[in-house]
């Protein structure tokens, strides 16, 4: 409205940022040779940049606060595309065809990164069970992923067992670890749970790193076999395509299972647990069992994803299972919209594929990723696709569709 006032405010903000970034952006010291370099031009860039950004920031914030009041009166085009059969049937067909012909129209590299992205779709869906559905904040999800990957690599190395034998083994071992971690933390809630799961994941990573005789330590395990296809020998390009189709199948399976779980008896119990633990117990739900199944089922998918990951890269070491990886998977779930399956799929593809395509910006890739996480949260905290609760009482959809998802925790 009052453009001049806003401009003035942006000006002061720009001034603040010039002051704030002064030592870091302008001065560069070489402590070895005792040389100081002054880069005054940077001030100008910071000033102009922060001026423009803060102006846009205010503009969008205002827009956002205005749109909050009008939310829900009309379903957004995206939502209609997703939920109205008239639109989503053709869209599904197009996506299905694209998925099938993808490896034949794109290069080896594209297939490869798409396969990586699909692994993250699986991870995202698995963590979605824990965080999105049951409300258990897990900052150490990567532990189960590591369990899966190492169980394939190690059992294959020592006993020569094949991919298809070890896939269920990896899943079961991960589920077992899920219960193992779940048991002691049953009493903990919210952020205590978060730090304990983080601690567990670090413990597992450190053991893998230090216990050489067991896990080959930091040098990792190489030459893990790729999955076989009825004994046919595949070259690296063919096996990449084979991996791709395998992951498509597993992702579809994951989507199907999570979708069924969500509206099942146990799914509703998770929801109840997420909303209110005490009321949930009062309603006669077995809290211990509900929590443990959430951990076990969530971990199962990570275990399978781990086996697939080890088979795809043919080399694993503990460096792939750091906290940053857990944070990445959690970002996928939250950015996608907690509990929402389609949202998680879209977010996983976006988070893994975007940095790959942003390689042109090489150095600026991670800083952009950080900035995107912040802006997404501020302008769309409910995620790309906010989860819609299945309603049982009536078919008339009233205004408050999106209400209710932000009351968890």
């Amino acid at each position: 409205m009052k453009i001049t006032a806003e401009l003035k405010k942006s000006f002061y903000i720009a001034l603040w940022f010039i002051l704030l970034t002064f030592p870091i952006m302008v001065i560069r010291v070489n402590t070895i040779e005792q040389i100081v370099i002054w880069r005054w031009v940077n001030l100008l860039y910071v000033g102009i940049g922060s001026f423009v950004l803060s102006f846009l920031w205010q503009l969008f914030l205002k827009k956002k606060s205005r749109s909050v009041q009008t939310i829900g009166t009309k379903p957004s085009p995206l939502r209609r595309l997703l939920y109205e059969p008239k639109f989503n049937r053709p869209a599904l067909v197009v996506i299905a065809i694209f998925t099938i012909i993808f490896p034949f129209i794109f290069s080896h590299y594209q297939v490869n990164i798409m396969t990586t992205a699909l692994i993250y779709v699986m991870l995202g869906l698995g963590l979605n069970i824990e965080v999105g559905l049951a409300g258990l904040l897990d900052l150490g999800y990567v532990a189960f992923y590591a369990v899966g990957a190492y169980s394939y690599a190690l059992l294959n190395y020592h006993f020569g067992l094949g991919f298809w034998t070890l896939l269920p083994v990896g899943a079961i071992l991960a589920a077992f670890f899920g219960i193992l971690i779940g048991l002691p933390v049953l009493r903990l809630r919210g952020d205590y749970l978060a730090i304990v799961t983080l601690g567990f994941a670090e413990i597992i990573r450190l053991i893998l790193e230090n216990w050489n005789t067991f896990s080959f330590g930091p040098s990792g395990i190489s030459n893990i076999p790729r999955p076989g296809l009825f004994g046919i020998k595949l070259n690296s390009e063919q096996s990449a395509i084979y991996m791709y189709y395998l992951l498509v199948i597993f992702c579809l399976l994951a989507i199907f299972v999570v979708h069924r779980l969500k509206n099942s008896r146990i799914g509703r119990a998770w929801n109840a647990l997420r909303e209110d633990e005490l009321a949930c117990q009062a309603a006669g739900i077995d809290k211990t069992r509900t929590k443990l199944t959430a951990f076990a089922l969530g971990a199962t998918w990570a275990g399978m994803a781990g086996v697939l990951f080890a088979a795809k890269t043919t080399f694993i070491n503990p460096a792939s299972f750091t906290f940053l990886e857990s944070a990445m998977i959690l970002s996928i779930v939250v950015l996608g919209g907690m509990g929402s399956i389609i949202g998680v799929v879209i977010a996983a593809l976006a988070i893994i594929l975007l940095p790959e395509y942003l390689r042109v910006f090489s150095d600026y890739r991670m800083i952009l990723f950080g900035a995107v996480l912040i802006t997404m949260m501020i302008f769309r905290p409910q995620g790309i696709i906010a989860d819609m609760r299945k309603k049982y009482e009536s078919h008339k959809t009233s205004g408050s569709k999106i209400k209710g998802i932000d009351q968890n925790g």
Partner: protein
Amino acid sequence: MNYFGELFFSGLTRGSIYALLALGYTMVYGILQLINFAHGEIYMIGAFTALIVASVLTVKGFSSIAILVLAAVVAVVYSAAYGYTVEKIAYKPLRQAPRLSPLISAIGMSIFLQNYIMLAQTSDFLPYPNLLPPIPLFNRFSNIIGPSELSIVLTSAILMILLTLFIKFTKTGKAMRATAQDKEMAMLVGVNVNRVISTTFIIGSALAAIGGILIASHTGRINFYIGFSAGIKAFTAAVLGGIGSIPGAMLGGLVLGLAESFATGYISSDYEDVFAFALLVLILIFKPSGLLGRANNQKV
């Protein structure tokens, strides 16, 4: 016995730093129920700023005591400003958002700040000058506790006492406690909650900056990544002591530092972090809200 004493003091050094950083986490958590993942980066920025100022002053030929004072002051002011700005950008717009949104935004901020320093400064390790004054008096004991360890322990102790007094007796301190107990209620009785939150970030960041200078001087090196691992440990310390509790953060830091030191000394440093996290899990199993945390009775 001598060995025990040595390990004890090295644990104390480590623990004091964890405690200083943990205070930042715990204060923010107490008021906003938010894990401020960017706190470790504030600590790193504090140390970096001090390094830059100290280098410029060294080239200009200042005396070492002037360098220490000026570098520390500038670093504290700048870290506080960064903490304040981070809160305004990444957390304030999210007061009403779902619980996990500020957490993701904090992770984003942490990644952003790390890469900001890497791009604007360097990705290399830089040598860090020893800014701490030598204490000749204690040279006799230097095989047990060195001068830099001693200054770390003393500075942290003084800061923690000051902070405790501040929270207990000043008006702002009271407002902080009130906000931590009940935000709405505090607002109703006339506490400016936004200002209290900003103050919390400023104090936490200033403490982190001092921690950064102390530890970077002690280890003699710095790069853009040092905040990350220290941050995770400090956060663990805060939870160990009972997150939200200020004495808890101090105790948690010391317990964690000592545990790591003794684990290294008597068992093996291969698994020092494993022991640290295992200790955390054990304590939380028996005391789910940490050592000094208030048990949170749940009501429907």
